[in-house]
């Protein structure tokens, strides 16, 4: 009996021992699986890192229609002197550079690695190297701190960060000599001494409009963040719509639509609007596909009207624009960068 009881205990102990061993084997297998999965993820990390790595920043394409600064009105009799009688405007300094009323400023954007600590120091446009810009990168980032306690530069966008550079045209020359200028290629110098050539898109710098009497000004304008907006005015004389002067709408291909009192602008050509009637110009801008999502479009098209005497009246649409740098997410940033690299 005792022998049988001893055998029973032994059998039970063996079984429990096997249970424990089985449990440990199962645990070991689960560990190995998790270990392999983590190691595989690390390999994917390395592969993605190299695939997504930007060895140089990608400047977004800027399609901007800008005006050169307007020179202060020159007094024939008092060139280069203070004219106290008319408010003290100095029309021209001794070096022949006129004094300007409004500075020319705009922002340039680019995408780069989040850990990239370089900032843009100088931008020289190949088409007009005589134009001097002061490039001042915004180094303030979000509240997020990197591991080493440094703040990030720019706004994080997935793997990359969106940086912005304030560009101010230095008033060192008489811009009237240049006429209209189109800029697209730039040499960009960074704070660490590196430089690169960048495709900036298309920046048109126009001489300011001289005859403001021909301008039609809207009485009411509205624009929404969804890209829609309208400008309306009451016709002060009988007007006929003559067409659209498009400066950069070709670059905005497929992204915009303009309607005049509900009619497509193409269908409204030749249409007459009586004096006292409300003319409402509505427009819409779509968010482009990922490959163009970070670009900037500020087309400022002009609607051309004619009065009864054939004199042209111009109406500039100032809000038909799309500013993409902060519109995209991490995935569209990758698509955008890859599309730009493939060009």
């Amino acid at each position, binding site marked *: 009996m005792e022998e049988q009881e001893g055998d029973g*205990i*032994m059998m*039970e*102990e*063996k079984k*429990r*021992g*096997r249970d*424990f*061993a089985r*449990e*440990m084997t*199962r*645990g*070991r297998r*689960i*560990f190995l*699986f*998790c*270990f392999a*999965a*983590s*190691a595989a*993820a*690390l390999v*994917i*990390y*390395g592969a*993605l*890192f190299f695939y*997504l*790595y930007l*060895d140089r920043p990608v400047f977004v394409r800027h399609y901007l229609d800008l005006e050169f600064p307007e020179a202060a009105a020159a007094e024939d009799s008092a060139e280069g002197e203070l004219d106290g009688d008319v408010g003290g405007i100095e029309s021209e300094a001794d070096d022949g550079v006129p004094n300007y009323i409004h500075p020319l400023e705009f922002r340039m954007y680019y995408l780069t*690695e*989040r*850990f*990239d*600590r370089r900032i843009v120091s100088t931008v020289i446009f190949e088409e007009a190297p005589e134009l001097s810009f002061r490039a001042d990168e915004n180094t303030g980032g979000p509240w997020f701190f990197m*591991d*080493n*306690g*440094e703040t990030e530069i720019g706004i*994080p966008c*997935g*793997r990359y960060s969106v940086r912005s550079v304030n560009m101010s045209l230095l008033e060192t020359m008489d811009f009237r000599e240049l006429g209209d200028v189109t800029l697209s290629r730039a040499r960009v110098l960074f704070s660490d001494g590196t430089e690169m050539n960048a495709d900036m898109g298309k920046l048109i710098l126009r001489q300011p409009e001289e005859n403001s009497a021909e301008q039609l000004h809207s009485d009411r304008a509205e624009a929404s963040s969804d890209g829609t907006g309208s400008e309306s005015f009451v016709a002060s004389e009988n007007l006929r719509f003559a067409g659209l002067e498009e400066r950069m709408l070709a670059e905005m291909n497929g992204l915009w639509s303009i309607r005049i009192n509900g009619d497509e602008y193409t269908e409204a050509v030749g249409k007459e609007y009586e004096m006292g009637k409300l003319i409402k110009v509505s427009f819409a801008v779509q968010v482009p596909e990922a490959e163009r999502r970070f670009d900037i479009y500020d087309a400022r098209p002009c609607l051309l009207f004619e009065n009864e005497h054939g004199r042209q009246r111009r109406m500039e649409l100032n809000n038909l624009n799309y500013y993409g740098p902060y519109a995209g997410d*991490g995935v569209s940033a990758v698509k955008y960068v890859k599309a730009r690299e493939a060009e």
Partner: protein
Amino acid sequence: MSEKYKVVFWGLFLTTVHINLGSIQLLPPFIALLIVYAGLGGLFSISDLNEFKTARTFCLIAAAANLSGWAAALVGPVLGRQLGEGLSSGVYIICEMGLFYFLLTGSARAFLVPDLPRSASWAGRENSTGHAGPEAAMDEKFVFYQGRAVLITVVFGIVNVGLIIGSALYLETLLWLVMLAGFIVQIWMLVLVHGLDKAWRAELPPGDPAVISEMGNRMDGEVQTAEKDPEFEER
């Protein structure tokens, strides 16, 4: 054993809680991991269990990875710094998972080692198999810590994959979630190690040698009686 678990606990505590002076980390994780390494060394020397030895290896690799991450942070070029920091962090968390698994599974096995002194708190227990006293507690604790080792490994594995992929693509929401989960896992681990410290506190001299030696040999499926065990006879 209890003292060694205390050392491990404080080492792990310092890897979890970072004390910074501005941007300077006063006690970087690799130093804290060396404390864990010392604690694991003590556990291995007492129990002679290979799991603690493996945990030590993972601990050492994790410390080296953390140190290399620091070195990478000092490298100027973006590529070296970003890649170096990313990879070292990846290796670090994988090794931390290994450390946790082997520490817990070794601790679970330690409850079955026959010649370790038993805790007073284990006495007077009865388990489902009808065993009473310290051996019943051994069963329960083995099952408990082995189960936690597996559970913590699974959670840590998911956290690791999320963290690595999230870091690659900078998916911030995912990163925040997995970092939170990782922090919870570390706190959980601290609680478990504290439990181990408590379990081995108030140690008693080996209880009934016959029972304990039987339990200790379950892994091999052999029953060894106290009479046949010269070590117990000596004691």
